[in-house]
């Protein structure tokens, strides 16, 4: 049990590190912010047509920007210490609410894409890994490299044109119904599956070449029995670790797909926040994404520890 505690305390320290890094980055951002922050926020709030010196002055007064970056930084960090991420400078909504909505949409899409990719990638990888060097293995290597090299927006466009415009099977874009999930999730899943197929392939090849796999054969088990009883569990640990990592990479890779398919999401929110210098939003998003990563890793740690109880070298 104390190994679990040790792993969790490591994640806690990591969470602290994340908060610190986000804090320092935010401070640097504040320092680097040109003097016209008020103009930028005004432009974001009211639309570029309506920005004027008067509006900028009003924003400056409202947000107490005159106090200088250091004072603002302290104020924001102080709020954060009380678990208050503040309000968006642009919309005036609590950062918390905005993130919850947008991150939720991103996570839904990411989860759908992950689920789909797991149906495609690992089975192909396992099959290739059982016959390393065979024709299927070599074809998979090239096909996987190809799918990883296709820009996602292109894949998305092709899917829209074929499945939505030509065949009219699915909605082209938008958010709200189950049918809206299919195309963006598929776009993401193909790239993800290409990557996870490789990981599954390498893990499977390593396990299949291991002495214990050979011994299982010597014991008289059939290949299917060996795969089920000694293969899957042994490749699960590296695969789950990788899928955890992939989920995070997905959360950011999703931004391109989000814009193509008109999906609300965290990547989208982050780009807007950075572009509009909405510091509390940037800070809040960074913090939530960073801590989400830590949390996810803690969960992955626990799962992997359950699958493979050997002491994992840190």
């Amino acid at each position, binding site marked *: 049990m104390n190994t679990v505690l040790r792993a969790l305390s490591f994640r806690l320290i*990591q969470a602290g590190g994340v908060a610190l*890094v986000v804090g320092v980055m935010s401070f640097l951002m504040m320092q680097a912010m040109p003097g016209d922050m008020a103009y930028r926020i005004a432009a974001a709030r009211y639309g570029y047509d309506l920005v004027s010196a008067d509006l900028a002055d009003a924003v400056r007064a409202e947000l107490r920007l005159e106090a200088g970056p250091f004072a603002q930084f302290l104020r924001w960090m102080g709020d954060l210490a009380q678990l208050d991420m503040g309000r968006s400078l642009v919309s005036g909504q609590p950062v918390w609410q905005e993130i919850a909505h947008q991150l939720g949409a991103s996570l839904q899409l990411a989860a759908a894409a992950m689920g789909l990719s797991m149906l495609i990638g690992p089975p192909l990888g396992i099959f290739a890994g059982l016959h390393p060097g065979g024709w299927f293995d070599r074809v998979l290597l090239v096909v996987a*490299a190809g799918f*990883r*090299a296709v*820009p*996602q927006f292109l894949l998305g466009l092709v899917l829209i044109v074929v499945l939505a415009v030509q065949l009219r099977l699915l909605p082209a874009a938008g958010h709200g119904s189950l049918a809206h999930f299919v195309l963006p999730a598929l776009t993401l899943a193909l790239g993800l599956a290409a990557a996870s197929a490789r990981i599954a392939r390498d893990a499977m090849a390593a396990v299949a070449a291991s002495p214990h796999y050979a011994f299982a054969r010597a014991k008289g088990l059939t290949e299917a029995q060996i795969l089920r009883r000694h293969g899957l569990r042994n490749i699960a640990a590296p695969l789950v670790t990788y899928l955890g990592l992939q989920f995070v*990479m997905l959360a950011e890779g999703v931004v391109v797909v989000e814009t193509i398919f008109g999906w609300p999401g965290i990547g989208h929110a982050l*780009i807007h926040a950075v572009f509009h210098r909405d510091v509390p939003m940037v800070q809040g998003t960074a913090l939530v994404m960073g801590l989400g990563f830590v949390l996810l890793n803690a969960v992955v740690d626990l799962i992997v520890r359950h699958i493979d109880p050997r002491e994992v070298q840190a």
Partner: protein
Amino acid sequence: MTASRLGWGLLVALICFALLAPLGDPLGPFRQSLTKALSGAEAAAPFGYDHLGRSMFSRLAHALRLSLLLAFAATATAAAIGIAFGALASWRAGWIDRALSLLADSMLALPALLMVLMMGVILSSTPLAFWAGLAAVQWIEFFRLTRSAARSHLASPAAVAATLQGFGPIWIFRRILWPEIGPMLRTTIAFGVANSIAAIAALGFVSVGMRAPTPELGLMMVELLPSWREAPFALLQPVLACFTLLLALNLIAGARK
């Protein structure tokens, strides 16, 4: 191994194109003639013209130069920092190791997109922001790789033998560590460059990357995307260039020993 050789072949071909094409190019990437917008190939512009009548040949070459230069610079910087820190952490151990590991773990938790965007705010120049942001994301991988390789190899009999024979840390790094991590680095660097190129193009595509009229693959795609039915070949060029580049790097990185 053939996949890897194919990858190297494609990469070298693209680099040659990027380096050599602008030498014999009469138009340059910015010269426009609106009347030739989206028209086909001719002697002065072998790949045709874009929506503003600029030479696709020239723009493609410059875009490839930019992507390759930025991606290689960022990855090289990341590798240098990561390897140095990784070697330092495993050599000195103790609190230096713990501090560097915590820094790496914390930065790892921040999504790459965030890092690049934040650098974009802190640094005013976009290429500089890409370079710094991508390097800040990638050094962690090199750090972890070097650190774990160094930890196992510094405790190996070969390293102990070297110490007993009076060799210093530099010899051990050069003769034992470097030859071991070198091949792994090839993979990591190839993936790093591929990811950087993809990131630059993706950010260009969502309009937060390089700014027009700079020729950049993602930006060219987004500019030509509206005309994808009128002039599919114009759009296909940056797409193919990007695809080939990434494919080459993925094949190099994915090759098995």
